[in-house]
Each structure stands twice: as structure tokens, then as C-alpha cells.
């Protein structure tokens, strides 16, 4: 889990404390507090990536912004495929989300 796939312009991470997704450059990736979601796609940048919370994603797809909802689903599946080597960790990532939501 600590080894991240090299990318030249940043990655999307989830903070382990509050489950908010945001972008950091590779140099600032800290496995103690960040959970890697995916590399930034072409066209995205660390500075322009808008942070989003997991709860907000659920709300948005519920209110009918289909694009955002679809995007979040593909993000999740990407995260799964990218960390296929550590399937247990990926399951943990998915499982921890509802717990965090309940806590709020």
C-alpha cells in the first residue's frame, strides 16, 4: 500500500481522518494519512482539483447530477483495479466509508 504507482503530475488521495478526496503531488503523498485513490487524469492538475467529500458525492448523485455520480463510480472501480494487488486493503477502503458516514 505504501508503494504508489509513479505518476508525473499528482494523485487523488483520500484523507484517512475525514474521507475527503483531494489531490496532492507525488512528493507530498504520505501513506500515514493518505489513501491513494487514483492518478490524476490528463487535464486535471493538483492545483485545480476541487476537493470533495464522500457524503457530498452521494448527495450529488441523489439530486440528479448524473455525470458526477457516474464519475464517482468510475473512480471507485479504478481504485479497486489499481490496488488489485492488495485486495484486502481495497476492501477495507470500501468498507470504511459507511462507518465514516455513520460517525458523522
Amino acid at each position: 500500500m505504501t508503494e504508489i504507482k509513479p505518476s508525473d503530475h499528482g494523485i487523488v488521495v483520500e484523507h484517512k481522518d475525514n474521507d475527503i478526496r483531494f489531490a496532492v503531488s507525488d512528493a507530498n503523498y504520505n501513506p500515514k494519512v493518505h489513501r491513494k485513490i487514483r492518478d490524476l487524469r490528463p487535464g486535471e492538475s493538483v492545483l485545480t482539483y476541487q476537493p470533495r467529500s464522500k457524503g457530498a458525492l452521494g448527495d450529488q448523485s441523489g439530486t440528479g447530477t448524473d455525470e458526477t455520480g457516474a464519475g464517482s463510480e468510475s473512480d471507485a472501480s479504478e481504485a479497486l483495479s489499481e490496488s488489485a494487488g492488495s485486495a484486502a486493503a481495497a476492501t477495507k477502503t470500501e468498507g470504511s466509508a459507511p462507518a465514516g458516514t455513520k460517525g458523522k
Partner: protein
Amino acid sequence: MAPLVQWNPSTQISRGNVSVGIAPAVVDIDAPAVAELTTGTGLDCSIQTFNGTSSTDSESIDWLCDPASEQLPGSTTHTIDDLVIKGTGQADATLIADLNVGDVVYIWRRDGLAHDTAPAAGQFVWVWKVIITSIDPLEANNVFVGITAHITVLSRSAQAVAIVA
């Protein structure tokens, strides 16, 4: 006619009643959440001063018919003075990691409450979306060891905004 109401709150000193923190991510700087602010690190005990200001340039238009020029407000630029942060010089990895040098982080400040009061919904904070562009060692003199963080402000909350739950 009613008398003019004077705005005259009791005077509060800033020392002990201001908290400043760095948060890794805030989804909406005009509606920061408690969990977003508590995830970061408080700096109140390691800085001596914090100054966030803004400046606005004005456009002047000189109409032929009018000897006085018309002034229009231009764009506003927010700035934060360099932050001088106390450090150890040898074991500052946690602080440096929180600064995420080169990436976007969020600096918040809460005035008027004892600095160690836990952030809670309804409290008013100012939030800056910033990039710590570089850090330097502090000037070596006989005071204390630390770093200077140079900050570029990308945007700021409209004013002091309430923390949401």
C-alpha cells in the same frame, strides 16, 4: 428619533484568543466543516503573528465631459504574510508533511475564542485557500529555531464564515 447605536464590544486581546490551523482539504471555503478543520494541525502555539490582508486595485476612467475621473473597483488580491513557525530543526517531518509544499492547503483562523476551544459548528472562521510555495530556515539568531513558510493565496472565504457540522 432613536439615539445612534454605538458599536462598542468589550475589548479582547488577541493573545490566547486566536487560533490558526492548517487543514489539508476544505470542500467549500465558505462552509468549512468541523471534520475538515480538525484534521489539520493547529499552529497557535508555534507562531507569534499572523497577518492576512487583501488589496484591491482601482480602475479610473476619464470621461470627456467630467473633469473628475470615475473610479471603479478592480480585482482583489489576498495575501498572507510569511509564517514564522517554531520547529525543532531535526524532527519536523510532521509539520513539513502538513504544509504540503507546492500543493493546495487551507489555512483557517478563528478569533475571539480561547485558542484551545475545540472547533465546533457555528463558530466563525476565516479560511484561505493557499499554496505554501517554499519553506526556509529561520534566520539564525539567539531567539528560536524554526522555519519560514512563504504563502501564495489562491482565494479566501467571503468573510468570517460559520463552521458547519
